[in-house]
């Protein structure tokens, strides 16, 4: 893969105006699939399964099988449309998008084309400095996911060089809503930040609605980022690229930045942008060319004759509208007050993308200050070091467990950090790690006293100083005791005991 030439970000922005657009696919967490009664692998709490075990004849494209629309998926889609401020179509239609690909059982995807269920909305996105931006939504439509191909026999796991491919249809037919924005103008130097904030907002919305697991690392939420540049002063839009496979908020930001820099370098050198899909590579932080994509791609769309138009009753729409949770922005203001965080403390949490994790951690019983300390501290540090989203490292339940273990004195901060590392490594819950690795604070005074007496006996001069009232001299003994206990002791308790034993 040739290395792309990049222009400096600031220079690129000086010469060109970026125009953004996003297609976000949300996997709905319904119990069954979009058009079949097979269990949905994206359902809440679904376990991973062996390939091709979560399939019905419809998902496999077997002859004679017929799709039936999942009513719950329609309700979820309407709720999402409403939360995006969209109008809900009194009648919308499914269409067939025809193309041959082995991950598509029927060799067509059932999607919505000219009559989406939701259209014309907007989303308020909050940026890091607290300012708001309105992202215009063109449409949100229902469709089904495709299966997954695994290419076997090649060195890279890609199709080139593989000698055969395996298909898993478990994901085929998973209900999706695709949210399409209108072109976003005026993003300027904040384009990468806006990209990230937009996707984070969509994630917050679907989470607050409870319609998707919304875990980007699991593909529940997938973003295709469209970027084009136009020279300053030009009216016509430039040629866009569509970067796919962007699986974290951080990557969305980086991918947009990368595309701006790459396209600017090509345009500045007198080249032209190829309209194509680009693949984001997390490891190298670069994009590479996918397939050429033209507006003339011929999917031979036509209305899906196996399904009737979707005509939700007006009462249903109003019922769902009435049941909408407060918007993430309003919700955040309320949370901030409830948790007692300052504006800057709260903004840090939002900007780190860990608000939902924090909220869940608190819901599991942790004190807000403790939850904040862990998510913005050690967990974020590990996440940044690894280039992943903090939420993908550890579950809120485990964090709250960890906090409880420190609060009740079973773990010191230092021990807790060690336990966290083991939890992140997949060794199980904090309780389990503590038990398996014997990392618990020694709270048995007998063991501590034995260690203290030994330390005092080894340092008679220090003992004398303490007895003379020079309490700060105790530090040396405490250090020796903690070392002897391999850190598994509560330093404050050790201090108490040292002073007690010295004056005995």
């Amino acid at each position, binding site marked *: 893969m040739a290395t792309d030439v990049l222009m400096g970000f600031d220079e690129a922005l000086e010469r060109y105006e970026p125009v953004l657009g996003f297609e976000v696919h949300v996997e709905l967490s319904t119990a069954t699939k979009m058009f079949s009664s097979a269990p949905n692998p994206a359902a809440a709490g679904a376990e991973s399964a062996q390939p091709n075990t979560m399939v019905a*004849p419809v998902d*496999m*494209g*077997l*002859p*004679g*099988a*017929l*799709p*039936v*629309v999942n009513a719950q998926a329609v309700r979820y889609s309407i709720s999402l449309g409403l939360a995006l401020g969209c109008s809900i179509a009194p009648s919308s239609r499914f269409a*067939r998008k*025809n193309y*041959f690909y*082995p991950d598509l*059982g*029927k*060799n*067509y995807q059932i999607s919505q084309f000219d009559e989406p269920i939701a259209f014309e909305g907007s989303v308020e996105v909050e940026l890091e400095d607290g300012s708001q931006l309105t992202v215009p939504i063109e449409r949100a439509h229902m469709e089904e996911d495709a299966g997954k191909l695994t290419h076997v026999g090649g060195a890279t796991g890609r199709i080139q060089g593989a000698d055969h*491919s395996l*298909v898993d249809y478990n994901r085929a037919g998973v209900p999706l809503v695709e949210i399409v924005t209108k072109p976003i103008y005026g993003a300027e130097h904040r384009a990468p930040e806006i990209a990230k904030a937009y996707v984070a907002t969509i994630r917050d919305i679907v989470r607050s609605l409870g319609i998707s697991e919304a875990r980007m690392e699991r593909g529940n939420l997938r973003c295709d980022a469209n970027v084009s540049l136009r020279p300053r002063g030009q009216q016509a839009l430039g040629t866009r690229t569509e970067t796919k496979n962007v699986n974290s908020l951080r990557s969305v930001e980086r991918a947009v930045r990368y595309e701006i820099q790459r396209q600017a370098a090509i345009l500045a050198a007198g080249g032209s942008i190829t309209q194509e899909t680009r693949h984001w590579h997390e490891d190298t932080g670069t994009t590479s060319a996918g397939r050429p994509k033209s507006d*003339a791609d*011929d999917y*031979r*769309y*036509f209305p899906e*004759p*196996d*399904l*009737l138009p979707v005509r939700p009753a007006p009462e249903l729409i109003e019922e769902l509208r009435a049941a909408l949770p407060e918007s993430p922005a309003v919700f955040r203001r309320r949370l901030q007050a409830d948790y007692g965080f300052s504006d800057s403390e709260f903004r840090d949490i939002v900007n780190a993308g860990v608000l939902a994790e924090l909220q869940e951690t608190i819901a599991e019983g942790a004190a807000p200050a403790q939850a904040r300390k862990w998510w913005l501290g050690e967990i974020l540090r590990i996440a940044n070091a690894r280039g992943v989203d903090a939420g993908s490292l550890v579950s809120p339940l485990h964090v709250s467990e960890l906090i409880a273990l420190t609060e009740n004195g079973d773990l010191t901060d230092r021990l807790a950090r060690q336990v966290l590392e083991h939890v992140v490594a997949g060794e199980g819950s904090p309780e389990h790690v503590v038990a398996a690795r014997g990392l618990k604070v020694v709270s048995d005074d007998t063991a501590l006293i034995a260690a203290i007496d030994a330390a005092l006996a080894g340092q008679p001069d220090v003992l004398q100083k303490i007895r003379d009232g020079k309490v700060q001299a105790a530090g040396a003994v405490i250090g020796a005791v903690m070392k002897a206990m391999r850190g598994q002791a509560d330093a404050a308790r050790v201090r108490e005991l040292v002073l007690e034993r010295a004056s005995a």
Partner: protein
Amino acid sequence: MSELIRWSAAELAERLTAGDVSSVEAVRAHVDRIAEVDPDVHAFLHVAGDAALARAEQIDRQRADGAELGPLAGVPIAIKDVLCTKDMPSTAASRILEGWIPPYDATPVARLRAAGLVPLGKTNMDEFAMGSSTEHSAYGPTRNPWDLTRIPGGSGGGSAAAVAAFEAPVALGSDTGGSIRQPAAVTGSVGVKPTYGGVSRFGAIALASSLDQVGPVSRAVLDAALIHDVIGGHDPLDATSIPDAWPSMAAAAREGAASGSLAGVRVGVVRQLNGDGFQAGVRQRFAEALERMAAAGAEVVEVEAPNFEHAISAYYLILPAEASSNLAKYDSVRFGLRVEQAGSTTEQMMARSREAGFGPEVKRRIILGTYALSAGYYDAYYGSAQQVRTLVQRDFDAAFEQVDVLVSPSTPTTAFPLGQKVDDPMAMYLNDVTTIPANLAGVPGMGLPIGLAPEDGLPVGLQIMAPARQDARLYRVGAVVEALLEAEWGGPLLAQAPQLGGTRSPLQFAATPGTAPAAGTGTEPDGGTR
């Protein structure tokens, strides 16, 4: 030949209930008949002899034990190969599905089984139901029991020939543009295409989803009604299935036969479906049938359906368009024929498998449909075809404001010789000119025999159409017409069909095309009019 194979399904059912005959006897008689005549007729692609006998035995035992059985329990039935059956190959007469056994029954099949009917086997058809002669079957054509050198109609020639040759009392078919009604016409049998949504399409291998309907094939109107009552009704597995309750078709048929009257029934003759291009003998029998109906009290009027002229053009855009998409799944990845070569890509494997697995008519329609849906052509082709469809529906609406049922000859001609049109797709397509409008509008249609054409002694069919959801009206009117004509004939038309089996062989027939008309028609052939 055992006499019981000539009984209607209703009669057989009564005798089974009365204990005069066992289901095993009934099934064995039909299996024997198949063994005797099917080498000539080739109505079946698969015969489930042992399984059918085992099921019959089970039903006989249940009956002996005093179990509650449905009225048709123990009656054998043939099933068009387009319907999925979990215990028999389901190939839609295509190489690409050779040997494929689905993991489920089509809903109509499941309902038949639940009612105690005994599947005898799977019947031949044009590949993926594309054709009007059964000559496009990948497994060889079916022959018309009236004249083995002639076509049995299509696509459901196998089901029609099976009942006409007394290999089964009743059968299931599917009708996308006439595939039940046209074979019924040319074999002297009865066939009904129900209202779209009246019978579940789940498990019917799709040709054109917005046109396909599964329906009954029989030798008598009442038998079709009895099967319709079993297979019809709402199915949550088919999103286009109508959720409403339906009246009993059998009750309507019985009521019609008992009354023998068409008093107060307004019958509309569609002017556009009875033109100069129709065979003289077909027009003659049709005119006579109208006279009988008028004599029975019907008010017969001519109605206009100006847009029917464009129906066939619209149909041959909509059908290939939907078919091109429906048939995309046959790619060898998950099931069906696979042609592999070392070093080939997945795309090459798919292309080679489709090349080898599909016949020429299927390929022709896939290409037509792909073209009709292409960007830049969609509006001109698929788009305008849908507009014509709407106009055809409006013609029906307007006509049904004036009349209760519409009638036409079922087909423009009687059965044509095998081979005559197989290389002339346009001629083959025009054969469905009478039956296609009902599919485009989703209204129900029935085909039933009204005599033999004087010039060739071959069966002529009457098509009756009713407004959507008024299928019962077809059975009532059809039963009256049938009763009037059978009274005249002294029995069913099929009683006049030539004997099959024994010493005759298809070669003898092939050597003497234009077989003389069956005795009893009282007319001389006047030579073909086509």
